[in-house]
């Protein structure tokens, strides 16, 4: 199979010691990373034209290369933009190029700020999404589910399964992820039982999530695909907004995704995962500390006022400590629940939503979209009504089942 060509625009990757990790991540998803070849003489000229007068020469090179890609002088299937974490000058360039490239070309862009600790594993899902968009554009354009298909989403916190038949969801299953295969088996058994079908009836299977490769092999999946493209597809499908622009937000158990979607295909996307304080895991811990089930946290938060509780921490440990201190100082459980929801929403807003262009409708998916207080807090921050489609907690499984129908015989 022809390799997907990903153009690398970076500053500091080699001296941070992570260039090999970038190569390895691309290699593992059948892509190759290359550096757009430009003339030294063109660098200053391009920077002047772009108008961002930075001092670092490698940042100037990034700008010149981005312009060469946009002008069509160099062919690429996708773009990876990477700069050093904590470099302000680089962050400005990275941010502007992430905006400039999709606005002026059809290239998909993923950006990342690395440290010397960045590994190929961290970059894998992002690179895979770039290759999926390049390779499976036709499949991603699918708007209707046909036949009988199953999707399984092996997430870091929960495993979800969905059975679909003739464009309808006929069975669902949901289990906490403990042992990956056993959790998937349980979810699938429940979904099939609800649908009144057997495994033999399933015509195609799709898997996604952290455990996608393992469960994909186990179930003999026709489609094994990362969650960025799958969730985008599932979100616009369930929200009934398959055409045009939209923004998908998925606050997961271990990481968050913010995806700017056009016609069901991701344009720009970010995937955060450095800090657990901005994840669903923090809300789980909050619910546990408050002595309520996670399903009760949302309604509880809706009754409280988050502003009454001081919370100013990006860290799950210190964030929990703030909640404990607030409870000890006499704050109500409702206020604490609301503060936790606001804290997570605010961190996602500050750290990730600034990196994608927010276009309405804003669709929230994943298990955390059922936490009413979190959706409310996000809507307040974005000053818009956030759409939570039906079956939003099964988004990855629905997206997988929908896309897997492209593999049903006769399709």
């Amino acid at each position, binding site marked *: 199979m022809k390799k997907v060509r990903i153009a*690398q625009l*970076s*500053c*500091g*990757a*080699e*001296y*941070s*010691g*992570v*260039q090999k990790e970038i190569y390895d991540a691309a290699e593992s998803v059948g892509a190759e990373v290359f*550096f757009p*070849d*430009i*003339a*030294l*003489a063109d*660098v*200053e000229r391009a920077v002047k034209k772009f108008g961002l007068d*930075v*001092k*670092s*020469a*490698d940042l100037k*090179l990034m700008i010149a290369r981005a312009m060469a890609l946009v002008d069509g002088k160099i062919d690429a299937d996708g773009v990876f933009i990477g*700069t*050093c*974490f*904590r*470099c302000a*000058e*680089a962050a400005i360039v990275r941010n502007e190029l992430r905006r400039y490239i999709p606005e002026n070309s059809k290239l998909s862009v993923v950006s990342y700020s*690395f*440290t*010397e*600790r960045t590994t190929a594993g961290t970059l894998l899902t992002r690179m895979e999404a770039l290759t999926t968009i390049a390779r499976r554009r036709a499949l991603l354009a699918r708007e209707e589910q046909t036949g009988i298909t199953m999707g399984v989403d092996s997430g870091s916190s929960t495993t979800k399964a969905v059975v679909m038949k003739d464009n309808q969801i006929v069975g669902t299953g949901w289990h906490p992820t403990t042992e990956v295969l056993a959790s998937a088996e349980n979810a699938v058994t429940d979904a099939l039982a609800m649908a009144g079908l057997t495994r033999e009836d399933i015509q195609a299977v799709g898997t996604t999530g952290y455990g996608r490769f393992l469960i994909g092999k186990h179930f003999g999946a026709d489609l094994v695909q990362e969650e960025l493209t799958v969730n985008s597809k599932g979100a616009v499908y369930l929200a009934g907004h398959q055409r045009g622009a939209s923004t998908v937000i998925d606050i997961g158990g271990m990481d968050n995704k913010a995806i700017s979607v056009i016609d069901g295909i991701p344009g720009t996307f970010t995937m955060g995962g450095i800090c657990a304080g901005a994840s669903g895991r923090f809300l789980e811990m909050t619910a546990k500390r408050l002595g309520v089930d996670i399903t009760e946290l949302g309604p509880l938060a809706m009754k409280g006022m988050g502003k009454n509780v001081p919370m100013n921490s990006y860290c799950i440990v210190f964030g929990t400590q703030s909640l404990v201190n607030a409870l000890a100082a006499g704050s109500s459980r409702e206020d604490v629940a609301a503060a936790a929801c606001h804290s997570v929403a605010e961190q996602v807003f500050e750290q990730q939503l600034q990196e994608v262009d927010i276009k309405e409708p804003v669709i929230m998916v994943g298990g955390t979209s059922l936490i009413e207080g979190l959706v409310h807090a996000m809507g307040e921050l974005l000053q818009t009504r956030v759409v939570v489609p039906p079956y939003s907690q099964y988004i990855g499984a629905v997206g997988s089942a929908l896309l897997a129908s492209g593999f049903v015989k006769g399709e």
Partner: protein
Amino acid sequence: MAKVFIYPATSLILSDLVARFGHKPLGAALGIRERIQTAGLESPPLQITPEEPKRGLKYAAVEVPSGVRGRMAIYGPLIEEAEAAVIVTEADFAFGCMGCARTDELILFTLRQSGIPILELKYPTNEEEGIAFVATIKNFLKGLPNGGEA
């Protein structure tokens, strides 16, 4: 013979000048290419690993970007070894180039703090300045211990 750190560290012209006057140039020994097909303008010739940014902690704190620390892991020991330095500022890319402005600031500061003899001059923009440029470097190098025309 003195060990002379050159800045930009990738300048082959500076490296050659230092060697011509009987000294040992300390730099990256990299050629700047007409076409850039590598990650950066001064991509390292050696295999840098994640260990280099950690070694760079000797010269810059952990909150300093990894790319700066990785570069300092290479240039820091050279600066420690240097007995003199020639610094050319505002140089044309083709003369020699460093990719990261923050590393440049730290390298120049570290050199100035070291107390070694330093010649700082601007990159020439015309022939007249060019002649004066070479003459100034020549005089500086000749004045260093055991310096002389090679």
